[in-house]
């Protein structure tokens, strides 16, 4: 508890502390949000509180893809029009939204809920890896696309999973790394540029 909260009324101080625990919220923002909530109509504040309660009470992880959902299985896993032979493996539920926005992928997803990072005490057993293996046992899946982030931990995770899947006879691919569309070659950073060269294609 810092100086700003010790002099405030106890409920105010408590909410400031709760906000401060959230990612990206510093002490100043925590105070601003708290005093903002003090000023809004009670029904708006209750609506926010209710939304938070429902978030915890009315969501579960989809038993198929591990995405956060209200109904199990989730809407994507229930959708018969989706291609069940392809699974796109991602780190976090938010990544589904990113891929869905492209409208370029019509298969199913699998959410790992993290990446391998020994420094943070996270190993393969802490991720939804066994759930992925279980999904492949039926033999209906022909391709798994690894869409983890292109950093050390994302690649460690992708590599670990690829090695588990390859003996199962599933095709394992990963996202190509290249230049963002609409970007200027001159301003591309050279890691991206050299990756794009590695992943070059015939025209």
């Amino acid at each position, binding site marked *: 508890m810092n100086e700003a909260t010790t002099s405030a009324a106890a409920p105010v101080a408590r909410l400031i502390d709760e906000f401060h625990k959230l990612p990206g919220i510093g002490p*100043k923002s925590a105070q601003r949000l708290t005093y903002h909530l003090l000023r809004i109509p009670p029904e708006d504040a209750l609506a926010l509180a209710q939304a938070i309660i429902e978030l915890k009470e009315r969501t579960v992880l989809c038993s198929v893809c591990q995405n956060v959902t209200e109904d199990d299985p989730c809407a994507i896993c229930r959708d018969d029009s989706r291609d069940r032979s392809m699974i796109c493996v991602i780190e976090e539920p938010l990544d589904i939204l990113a891929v869905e926005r492209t409208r370029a992928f019509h298969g199913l997803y699998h959410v790992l809920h993290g990446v391998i990072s*020994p420094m943070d*005490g996270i190993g393969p057993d802490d991720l939804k890896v066994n759930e992925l293996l279980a999904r492949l046992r039926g033999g209906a899946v022909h391709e798994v696309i690894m869409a983890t982030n292109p950093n050390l931990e994302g690649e460690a995770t992708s590599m670990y999973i690829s090695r588990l899947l390859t003996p199962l006879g599933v095709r394992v691919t990963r996202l190509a790394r290249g230049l963002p569309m609409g970007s200027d070659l001159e301003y591309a*950073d*050279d890691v991206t540029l*050299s990756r794009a060269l590695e992943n070059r294609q015939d025209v």
Partner: protein
Amino acid sequence: MYLRRLELAHFRNYEQQELPLAPGRVLFLGENAQGKTNLLEAAFLLASGRSDRSAGDADFIAWSQRDAALPFARVAGTVASDGMATATSAALPPDASGREDAAPPAAARGVERTVELTVVGRASARGELVASKRFKLNGVARRASEVIGAITAVLFTTDDMDLVKGSPAGRRRYLDVMLSQIDRAYLRALQRYTKVISQRNALLRRVQEGDARAGELTYWDEQLADAGARLFSRRAEAVVQLAAAAEGAYARLSFGVEPGAAGAAADAACSVRDERFLLTYLPRFADAWPAERIAATAAEAIAAALLTRLTDTRARDVAAGVTLVGPHRDDLAMTLGGEPAATFASRGQQRTAALALRLAEARLIFERSGERPLLLLDDVLSELDASRRAHVLASLDADQVLITSADGDRFDAAFVAGAQVWRVAGGTAARA
């Protein structure tokens, strides 16, 4: 190259400071703790992205900013070069096989380059200020690895004797700071290697405690071998060049002659032979892989051998909970007349050896990049006697030398007359 302009905002004890600088000798004179060293530190940060003076980046932010909504410090520097020495064109992308070449930052080879570093602070959950660095090169936001080396610099400090008699970590830092400025692929491998070592060591401890399987090490072993081999290979290559430059610099500083000189300088040359300064690379790999073999082997083959070694010694690493081989445990050996310089040399010889190492660093940067680095001399001249000081000044081959000193009057008149002189007091520098 020379620093044409240096600007500081909220950096350490400077609020707003602009310094238009001249090529040649620039003297910053003033009492201690007034901010002379901060100016050299700022220039060195722009070149290397590093400072050895602070525990965290938040230290760069002036106290006046601590309660600001967005506390920050900013340093910007513009270097100019005469263009004559621009030997290598680095604007080429890595070749199609994906191999990054050893060229300095792309598109950074104009006549003028401006590097800007902003250190942005924010309060952590525990209420203390934590900071992160953001770089711009010629006005465009870039990652650190693309900006480091756009300005090159060598920093001489009174702690440099630690290079000779201190721990191996200081000697590895010496190699890293130098090579990072002239070899972007080295810097990138170093950044990756550092992360891999942290992750692998954490995993070794988890395996030791039964929280992870040894098989999980495979990916980290491969990454370590790949990045580690690049570091081994480039260090081995550089130290050969560096050793030759350091030996010559030591002889010049001590005796005013080149090793192997004859005729009139024969007596001096004799002393040079008795006091030869030799620098050798000691890679922490395996007995079968001394520096010469590493230097003569392709990085891919070194990586394959390192991977085998990591696999063979895995049980030992697990037991120790740390990675026992690899460039993070490298060292440099230094001898004077065949004896270890750390234990047998006098203080004066050690000081000369340290200066020789810095001069060799400047030489290597010049040979590799085609441009003379900025030389930053932080208080090092005041501790030398008149004759060594003269030798040092005669040995400096640079377009610009920035020198701090607490005692300007001890410089002879001719030296001061040829220099641009600044007086530094209370976080302000003014032309004298």
